[in-house]
């Protein structure tokens, strides 16, 4: 439990740092973003393995698949939200953001429109060779395993904002925790930018933590 808490704390901290690194002069730094996502990934793995151990005896799992179709169409509407930027920069290995990365490459603020057709093909297979194995959710985490079986995208897909209570995806508890903690941080931090970034970011509290989870799994900022 201690381990879980610590891992959560580090994840929240990392997300916070990522968010703020976008505000600094000189723009997003690729190396820094990479390092933050590495820590995020380690924290996530730690959290998951601790959680899995805790949940082992449990039976129920949130069904991830049904939520997906619901999520695709609304996604595109949100294309210009700057909230999406951290997401866009850290798209998950799961389908949705694959398309965006090339278009987002040359822009640090990722605001491009989402492609109409979103590939649902799991890219984890392309990642599993080479040194990227760590970026693919490990089989150990049961929640992810179920995702893979269903061929659905996990936490990432949820770019749009279903209300927090409905947050689906692979890590509902984590999502809620992050959202709670992160929105709290956003609201009370003295360093928060005075001008509200456009669109969705105006309501950070409503932002699903799931979209924050994008940064967990992706190693890179799409420039």
């Amino acid at each position, binding site marked *: 439990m201690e381990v879980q808490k610590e891992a959560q704390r*580090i994840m929240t*901290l990392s997300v916070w*740092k990522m968010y703020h690194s976008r505000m600094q*002069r*000189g*723009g997003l*730094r*690729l*190396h*820094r973003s*990479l*390092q933050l996502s*590495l*820590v995020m990934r*380690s*924290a996530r793995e*730690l959290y998951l393995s601790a959680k899995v151990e805790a949940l082992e005896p449990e039976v129920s799992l949130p069904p991830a698949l049904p939520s997906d179709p619901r999520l695709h169409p609304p996604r595109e509407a949100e294309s210009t939200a700057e909230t999406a930027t951290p997401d866009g920069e850290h*798209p998950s*290995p799961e389908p949705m*953001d*694959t398309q965006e*990365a*090339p278009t*987002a*490459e*040359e*822009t*640090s*603020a990722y605001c491009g429109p989402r492609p109409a057709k979103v590939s649902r093909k799991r*890219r984890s297979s*392309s*990642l599993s060779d080479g*040194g*990227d194995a760590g*970026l693919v959710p490990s089989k150990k985490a049961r929640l992810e395993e179920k995702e893979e079986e269903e061929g659905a995208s996990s936490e990432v897909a949820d770019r749009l904002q279903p209300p927090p209570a409905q947050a689906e995806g692979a890590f509902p508890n984590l999502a809620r925790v992050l959202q709670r903690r992160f929105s709290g941080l956003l609201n009370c931090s003295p360093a928060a930018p005075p001008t509200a970034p456009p669109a969705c970011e105006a309501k950070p509290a409503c932002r699903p933590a799931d979209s924050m989870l994008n940064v967990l799994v*992706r*190693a*890179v*900022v*799409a*420039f």
Partner: protein
Amino acid sequence: ILSSSCHTEADIISTVEFNHTGELLATGDKGGRVVIFQREQESKNQVHRRGEYNVYSTFQSHEPEFDYLKSLEIEEKINKIRWLPQQNAAYFLLSTNDKTVKLWKVSERDKRPEGYNLKDEEGRLRDPATITTLRVPVLRPMDLMVEATPRRVFANAHTYHINSISVNSDYETYMSADDLRINLWNFEITNQSFNIVDIKPANMEELTEVITAAEFHPHHCNTFVYSSSKGTIRLCDMRASALCDRHTKFFEEPEDPSNRSFFSEIISSISDVKFSHSGRYIMTRDYLTVKVWDLNMENRPIETYQVHDYLRSKLCSLYENDCIFDKFECVWNGSDSVIMTGSYNNFFRMFDRNTKRDVTLEASRENSKPRAILKPRKVCVGGKRRKDEISVDSLDFSKKILHTAWHPSENIIAVAATNNLYIFQDKVN
């Protein structure tokens, strides 16, 4: 044993570099300025006083810019300065910020022409009707003026942030490295550069490492090395192929499983790589150690020095305060027998490769008066703290020494402590 000879104020110093003779010392700061110090000629009546460094020239190298296409501000902070070897009376240096490299010419003017026919002494045109005689202008001495002029601007070649520049031993080319690419330039050509390394993956989502530093071999103009965020070094030979994506040598030390921790990956990122003057070794700096590698042995370094191992148990706090991302540099002395690097609390460390002795010194005004001898410092790691020791928890992490330089042939070092520059040299008996 070193004594302090002078120190000066500036904004936060971001790079320090001696020129090839050690006569000049350049510093760059966060405000985009370059300040060059020149060593005084040793005078006969002060035999025991070595030449001190005084300000020679100050100029604004880079200004803040705005990239309208990406809505990004480009910082004017000088990331690196590298000198060219002197080939005539003028001095040349390269300075770079995140995006643009500039070649500066620094030259002296101590004479000026006087006695123009068409202009008066202030330079105003004369009324032609008043000119009745012809004369030849003569050069008359004037107060020494040092002027810096930008001779070349090498821009628009880097999508990512430039972390290194390195002048080739052919003195005709140099390279600039950003997170994902390394470009080769000819000094005369500013509108083209040749891409020699490109590690950008086709799909950015698959990126796992970035380039952190790069340097040319001191003698072989076809050879260079670059370090990565994964703690590896690649040596490349430009004769092998046009695009040096495939390395000639790959230096990596297997990870020590007992040292594995949550932050292992990020502390293994190499922040600086330097060839020895001999060209036989390379030195790398990661967050906690300095390593010396033999070019002929790729599987592990030949020497590893602990800079501040007492921080290993504090990595989480250092992550919280962002210190874990600090990029320390490292330097060789002229004979490659001693290496130096910075730490926190304005401490810097020197390691003698032959005697295996090391020393921790502090760059601070309270502790060093001019011409006083620096006292070795010690960090207490636990248990009883002796009188002179400082405990790990009392270290000031805002006082970090990231940039240092060593004179090419003498025991003179320059240490940048935030916005102060300290110059220390051997005491002459």
